[in-house]
């Protein structure tokens, strides 16, 4: 496969680091600070987007920086899959920045400089993860992501938040340790940590037990993906300000986990090893279990953000389920769902934040009749919820369709049933909110109005885009199909 | 056999025993001055070892004589000269530390000091 060397991936990472530095320097002047934040976001997206034509033409972009440890360089390689994730993260950062400005200013939050600073660092590492060419580089950014999101999680600094932060760290640092172990083991056995389209495990004479152990440690290592039983950090982390939950805990962090899991399944173990050892199927059933159980948990939550968090856990497992089915349709569905879920979930979180800012309400039971006061927000919320359930013409439908095809292809009827059941569960936990908001009368007269424009516009746009993707999915599908071709062609 | 060995190597047994006594003084005694005494015994027994190992039967002190003679090994003596100085210096520092401690706590019993410093 043709590769070209370019500085773009490095620049994309660097831009937000520089942005972070500028944010820190201009911390005393909020307008300039937020200006830098926005500027970094736009520049970053520009750089990432500039790589689309190259990748679409089937080439890879590589950038080898220096060796951190001998034989273990910091290296970027942009392929279709990485680019997809990079595009999502950097594109949504722009919206989230706008949204955060509105959110933070309206609530008069403290330590805003720290907030924007950490946000920029977290974004850098998310892009770093997307473009990593080897496990080693990926791990570095993975750990930076963990550390840089911690201050965001504990932002409000109440004892409760600190407790949630400790839990967050406990899970993510522990998983980091497992990941590190797995990386060292892979390096030890294979002499490389590079991602390759056919995987690098095969043909190294690693004992079968070891392969299984490695897979398990790798999957614990990608606990950022929040599949069960390593999920419980995510609902706790909902104590963070809503923009954080929106971008990081619906897009960057958890998607990074899913992204890593996918990279490991497809690019380290490879399709052949996964299917020969039966690990793929085992994984599929674990995540299928997660899909159902997380949805059931979601039903019981009254806090809107927590319900969304459980919904995220469930939806992320779709992605891994698709990948674990190892068929072109499954992988396509899984990868598409990274994109679709990102837009839908960020819309939902933006709405949840808008409710908090405008009305101060976080509990679902208090949201009766809210649609009258905040019609636009509620419409966006409905769009997102419909997408989650996989209704046609929304983005969610596309990915769910592919997943269903894949489950039929490999004739695993239980998985098919899981997908269908989860659709029902999605309806069960989202629609009551919508119905109550539109049709139920509030107990008291409501006096608030829509959230500020800074917040309203981004959430309407993301809702709009998730419909656009549903209607015209060709462009992203093309990108995904290149990734799939690489994988299938490479084996 | 064993007796023969003890007669031929009694010097080692003596230094080892002395050293053990010193060692006990350092770790077993609670009075700081006694610890220092133990320390000195401990160190000087090592010097005994060195010097006795330098002995050559029938040898004389390593100062050159007119007529040829057998000399004992001079090198350990040199080393021990240095080591003695080191030991003395350590003792000096140790004693001045003890004075500091006495000024601070008014006692030299380790247990009492530990209680007082809580």
């Amino acid at each position, binding site marked *: 496969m043709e590769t070209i060397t370019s500085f773009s991936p490095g620049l994309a990472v660097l831009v937000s680091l520089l942005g972070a530095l500028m944010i820190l320097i201009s911390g005393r002047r909020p307008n300039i600070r937020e200006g830098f934040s926005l500027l970094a976001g736009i520049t970053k997206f520009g750089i990432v987007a500039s790589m689309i034509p190259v990748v679409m033409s089937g080439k890879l972009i590589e950038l080898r920086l220096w060796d951190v440890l001998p034989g273990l360089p910091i290296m970027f390689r942009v392929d279709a899959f990485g680019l997809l994730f990079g595009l999502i993260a950097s594109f949504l950062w722009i919206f989230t920045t706008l949204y955060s400005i509105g959110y933070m200013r309206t609530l008069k939050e403290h330590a805003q400089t720290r907030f924007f600073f950490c946000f920029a660092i977290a974004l850098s590492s998310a892009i770093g993860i997307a473009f990593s060419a080897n496990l080693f580089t990926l791990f570095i950014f993975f750990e930076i992501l963990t550390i840089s999101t911690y201050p965001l999680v504990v932002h409000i600094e109440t004892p409760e938040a*600190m407790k949630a932060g400790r839990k967050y760290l406990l899970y993510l640092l522990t998983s980091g340790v497992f990941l590190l172990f797995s990386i060292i083991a892979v390096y030890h056995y294979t002499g490389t940590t590079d991602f390759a389209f056919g995987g690098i495990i095969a043909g190294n004479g690693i004992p079968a037990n070891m392969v299984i152990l490695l897979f398990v440690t790798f999957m614990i290592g990608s606990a950022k993906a929040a599949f069960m039983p390593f999920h419980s950090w995510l609902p706790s982390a909902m104590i963070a300000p809503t923009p954080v939950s929106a971008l990081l805990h619906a897009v960057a962090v958890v998607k990074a986990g899913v992204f890593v899991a996918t990279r490991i399944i497809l690019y380290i173990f490879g399709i052949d090893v996964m299917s020969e050892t039966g690990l793929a199927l085992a994984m599929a059933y674990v995540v299928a279990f997660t899909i159902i159980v997380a949805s059931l948990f979601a039903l019981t939550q009254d806090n809107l953000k927590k319900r969304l968090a459980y919904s995220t856990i469930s939806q992320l497992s779709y992605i891994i389920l698709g990948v674990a089915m190892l068929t072109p349709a499954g992988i396509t569905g899984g990868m598409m769902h990274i994109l679709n879920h990102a837009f839908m979930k960020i819309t939902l979180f933006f709405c949840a934040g808008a409710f908090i800012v405008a009305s101060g309400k976080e509990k679902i039971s208090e949201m009766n009749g809210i649609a009258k006061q905040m019609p636009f927000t509620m419409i966006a919320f409905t769009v997102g919820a419909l997408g989650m359930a996989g209704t046609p013409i929304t983005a969610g439908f596309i990915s769910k369709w592919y997943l269903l095809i894949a489950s039929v292809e490999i004739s695993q009827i239980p998985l098919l049933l899981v997908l269908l059941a989860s659709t029902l569960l999605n309806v069960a936990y989202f629609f009551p909110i919508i119905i109550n908001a539109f049709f139920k009368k509030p107990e008291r007269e409501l006096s608030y109005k829509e959230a500020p424009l800074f917040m309203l516009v981004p959430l309407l746009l993301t809702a709009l885009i998730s419909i656009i993707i549903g209607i015209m999915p060709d462009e992203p599908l093309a990108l995904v199909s290149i990734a799939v071709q690489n994988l299938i062609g490479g084996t | 056999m064993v007796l023969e060995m003890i007669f031929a190597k009694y010097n080692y047994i003596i230094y080892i025993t002395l050293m053990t006594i010193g060692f006990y003084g350092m770790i077993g005694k609670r009075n700081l001055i006694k610890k220092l005494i133990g320390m000195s015994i401990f160190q000087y027994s090592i010097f005994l070892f060195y010097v006795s190992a330098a002995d050559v039967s029938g040898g004389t002190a390593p100062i050159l004589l007119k007529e040829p003679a057998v000399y004992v090994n001079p090198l350990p003596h040199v080393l021990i000269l240095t080591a003695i100085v080191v030991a003395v210096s350590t003792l000096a520092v140790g004693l001045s530390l003890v004075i500091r401690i006495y000024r601070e706590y008014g006692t030299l019993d380790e247990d009492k000091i530990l209680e007082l410093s809580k």
Partner: protein
Amino acid sequence: MITDHLPILLIIIGFFGAFFTPIIGMIRKKLCSPWATFITMLQFLISLLLLYNVLAAGNLSYWLGGWQPPWGIEYAVDILNAFVLVIVAGVCFLVSIYSRKSLGLEVPGKEIPLYTLYIVLSTGMLGIVITGDVFNLYVFLEISSLAAYALIALGGRQSAMASFNYMIMGTISASFILLGIGYLYVMTGTLNMADLSILLPGIYGRPVLLVAIALIVVGLSIKTALYPLHTWLPDAYTHAPSAISALLAGTFTKVGIYALIRVMFTVISPSYVIETVPVMSMLTWLAAIGILAGSILAIAQYDIKRMLAYSSVSQIGYIILGVGLANNIAMTGGILHILSHSLMKTGLFMVSGAIIYRTGIKNIYQLKGMGKKMPYTMGAFVVGALSMIGIPPTVGFASKFYLAWGALEAGKWVFVIVILLSSLLTAVYFWRIFENVYFGVHETEEIKKDEAPLSMLIPIVIFAALVFLAGIFASIPIEVIKIWVIGVLP
């Protein structure tokens, strides 16, 4: 050429520097500290030159007084020496800048003897590292120990007792080493390391050699504070003046480890201590226990310096573990960790000293709001602490990576688990501080910025930067270490 005499210059400069300190102090007391900085800077530069020469032209051997070894004393410099020399001299140099204000506050009015001893201490440590003669090593060990006892005793009320205990332990250790050296001499008739390494195979397997190894290993383990012989260390580091804690934490234990490596792997051959007599594997087990015990004890502390001291016990375990596993990778990791731990721990102790300088606070739960009050200092603290935990891209990560890999290479799964588990434990005791420093209660009142003085801040920031840079470019030190390791290990 003067450059031929670099090895002895390194020591002579220190000795004369120490001799002249009282004279300079008589002229003006204030000049003592710049003088110490100047001397240690010269030593640092010479060490760098030595490292450069060794890398460019191979090992150096310097005959003191022109007497051929084994009759005279030899200074032998190879890559390991030079590497450790640079670390030790560098730390001494930077801490001397830092110490002016810090010691000025904690030990007022005693500049003259203080800086005399400071230079003696640094020179003594450099001497231990550079010498190629086992008895000379003992002499230097005692020189530096004596200076260290006196310097530690300058701290607060309890420091004299801490120093006394350290002196008892230190004397036991030094006497063991002296006795071990005596055994080696009695059995071979030489004191020169290179000569010993040739002659020792003749007595392999004899009980005397076993006793000698036992004595030297135990002696050096006390010096390096290997668990369970670490008991002197927490008290000494806690009660010593901050600058001295920083200096000792960064250098003294490392010098002991250096001596251990030197004796075990170049004087006695690696195959003997690894295969014939399992000294090394015994050490690895102690080290592994020490890693965990040190971390757990550190979690139990609330005095910041005491916590750092226990963390040292744990980190020293890492180094010994790497050295004890004795394969190429683990050994590289262990030696690299000498560098990383020196950088991190010195930096962290200096930060704790800066906090004490500004506020007098030692309890980690009283550090609330310190992140606003001393932003740069605490930033450096964060970098150092993250490196201790092993978060990339800091140097602590690089060494931890190599150590874990080396343990895997050796097939010792237990140690892999120990290494990785302890990074979590490390996270526990450092994160408490982060929480207190940066988060916690909302304080409405504005906290005024009150940074440490520049002469303290600059070394701190340099250390933080080095932790970061050495982490990003870890392959440079690793390549250097590897040359040595490959040359030594079979």
